[in-house]
C-alpha cells in the first residue's frame, strides 16, 4: 500500500433538488484497485464523476493530496483520468488520434506528447490498431483504446465506470489482467463494477453504496461477505461459492 491517490471527506452531491450522495468518505491508495459496488441507482457513477471533477460537490475531495476544487483543468488531467461506461465517440478517428486527445490540455514538448501516447498504446496493446478507424473496432478493442487514452494523460489515478460491461468473458479477463498489471506498476484504479465475482477476484478493496450512502468499506473479501451483501442487495450469499447468490426465503 502506498500514498492516498484519492481521499474524500463527507462528499455530498445534489442533482437538481435531489441529494444523490450523502457524506461519502473513503480513500484509495496508489498500487491498488478499489471496487465501487452497489445496486442500480446507489450512486456509484455519480461518485466516480464527482471524484473526476465532473459534478459539483459538497465536502472535500483530495487527489494526490490536493483539493480537487482548486485544481486547474490541466492539473486535474495530470492527476486523474476518467473512462465512462459508454463513450459517445462515434467518429471515424484513427485510433492514434483518439489516444492523442489525452494530451489536449497538457502543455509539454512534442517529444513528451509522442512518447506518452506511444507508451500508453504499447501498455494497452493497441499499437497495431493505430491506423484503424475507432468506429470499426470491436467493443473490447474500443475499451482498450479508451483506457490507452486515459493512460496517455500520465495520470496515476484511473477512474473506470463498468470497464468490462458488454465484454465477453475472454476480453473481460484480459482487461482485468491489464488492470492488475497497472496497479502493480503503481497506478490507483477505482472502478465501478456490477459483478461481485469480478470484484472479489480482481480488486483489493471495495466500497459498498446503497441509496447514496456508503454502507461498508474495506478489504474486498470482507465487504463481499454475507451480511453486507444481504444489507445492500437484499440477497443471500452462498458461503460455499462466492459466485452463487439466491433470493431470501
Amino acid at each position, binding site marked *: 500500500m502506498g500514498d492516498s491517490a484519492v481521499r474524500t471527506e463527507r462528499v455530498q452531491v445534489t442533482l437538481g433538488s435531489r441529494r444523490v450522495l450523502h457524506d461519502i468518505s473513503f480513500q484509495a491508495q496508489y498500487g491498488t484497485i478499489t471496487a465501487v459496488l452497489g445496486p442500480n441507482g446507489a450512486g456509484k457513477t455519480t461518485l466516480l464523476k464527482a471524484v*473526476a471533477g*465532473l459534478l459539483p460537490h459538497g465536502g472535500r475531495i483530495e487527489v494526490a493530496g490536493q483539493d480537487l476544487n482548486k485544481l486547474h483543468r490541466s492539473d486535474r488531467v495530470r492527476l486523474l483520468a476518467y473512462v465512462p461506461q459508454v*463513450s459517445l465517440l462515434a467518429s471515424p*478517428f484513427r485510433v492514434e488520434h483518439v489516444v492523442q486527445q*489525452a494530451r*489536449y490540455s497538457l502543455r509539454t514538448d512534442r517529444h513528451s506528447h509522442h512518447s506518452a501516447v506511444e507508451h500508453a498504446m504499447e501498455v494497452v496493446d493497441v499499437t497495431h490498431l493505430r491506423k484503424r478507424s475507432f468506429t*470499426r473496432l470491436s467493443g473490447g478493442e474500443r475499451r482498450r483504446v479508451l483506457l490507452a487514452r486515459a493512460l496517455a494523460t500520465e495520470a496515476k489515478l484511473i477512474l473506470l465506470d463498468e470497464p468490462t460491461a458488454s465484454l465477453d468473458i475472454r476480453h473481460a479477463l484480459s482487461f482485468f489482467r491489464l488492470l492488475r498489471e497497472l496497479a502493480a506498476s503503481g497506478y490507483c484504479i477505482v472502478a465501478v463494477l456490477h459483478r461481485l465475482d469480478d470484484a472479489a477476484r480482481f480488486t483489493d478493496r471495495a466500497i459498498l453504496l446503497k441509496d447514496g450512502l456508503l454502507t461498508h468499506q474495506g478489504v474486498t473479501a470482507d465487504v463481499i461477505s454475507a451480511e453486507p451483501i444481504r444489507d445492500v442487495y437484499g440477497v443471500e450469499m452462498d458461503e460455499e461459492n462466492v459466485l452463487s447468490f439466491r433470493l431470501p426465503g
Partner: protein
Amino acid sequence: MSATRLHVALVLAVVVAGVLALFTGTASLGDESLRATLLQLRGARLSAAFLAGAALSVGGVAVQGLFRNPLASPSILGTTAGANLGGQIALLTASALSGASATLAIEMVLPIGSLLGALVALGILLMFLRAGADLLTLLLTGFILSSLFLSIGSFLTSMAQDSWELGRTMVAWSLGSVSGAGARHVLFALPLIIGGTVAIWGWGHALDVMLSGEEEAASLGVDVKATRRWVVVWVAVLTGAAVSLGGGVAFVGLIVPHALRPIVGAEHRRLVPSAALLGGAFLIACDALGRVVPGRSEIPLGIVTGLIGAPLFLWLLLRMQREAYDG
C-alpha cells in the same frame, strides 16, 4: 489521399470554377468595350460566391462538430435566419429612407443589416448559454429563433408587395443571389470570413475532443462552456457574413463537410481548410450554372444549390448508410 494533394486538387477546382464563371453569362467577354466592366463585375461576383461558400461550409463543419450531428447545418443556430431578417429590415429601411427604388440605396445597408441580424440572434443564444443552456437547449433555441425570424421575414415580404420593385427585391433576397455583390461587399465580408475560418480552425482540437461528448471532453481538460460559446460566436459571424454576400443559400453548409469526411477524415483541423476550398468552388460553380439555363437570364443561387444539394445529400446519406453496414 494526402492533405497536400487534396488541397492542390481543391485549389484547382476553385480556379477551374472561377475561370468558367468569368466566361459565363449573357454578355460575351469577346466584346472589347464590355470586357473590363464584365471582368470587374464577374470577378466581384465569383469572389462573393467563393467567400459565401467557404463561410457556410466552415460553419457547417463547426456546428456538425459541436452538436456531434452530421445532419446539422449552420442555419441550425438561427443566425442565418437572423441575418436574412436583418437584410430584409435593411431593405425596407433603405426603401423608406430613400423613398425611391430600394436597390439604389442598399449597397452597404444590406450587408450591415444582415450582420446585425446575425448578431441579434447570437446575442439571444449567448443569453441562453450564460443561463447554463446545454446543447439540446441551444439546438431548440436556434430552431425557435429560426421559426420566429422566418415568420417575421415572411410578414415583411408580404408587406413589401405593395411596392413592385421592393417586393421583387425582397423575394430575390430571400432566394439567395450573389448577383448584386460588388467589391465593397467582398471587402466588408472578407475579414469576417477569414477571421471566422481561422478561429474555427483554432478550436479544431477542442471540437475533436468534444465529439466524445461534453463529459468526456471536460475530463480531458476541454473548457466545454468556452468552446461552445466561441464556436457559436464564430458560426454567427461566418453565417452573417455569408448571408450579407449571398442572401439565403441552402445546403452548402450541410453537404460540403459530408462530402469531405470520407476523404479527409473527421479531424476538424483537416476539414476546415478543405471545406473552405470545396464550399467556395461549389458555390462559384452553382452561381455559374444558374447563368446558363436557357430561356431565362438567371436562376437564383439558392434555388440552384437546393436543386443540386438535395439529391446530392440523399446520395451521400445512402453512401454513409452502406458504409455503416459494411462495418
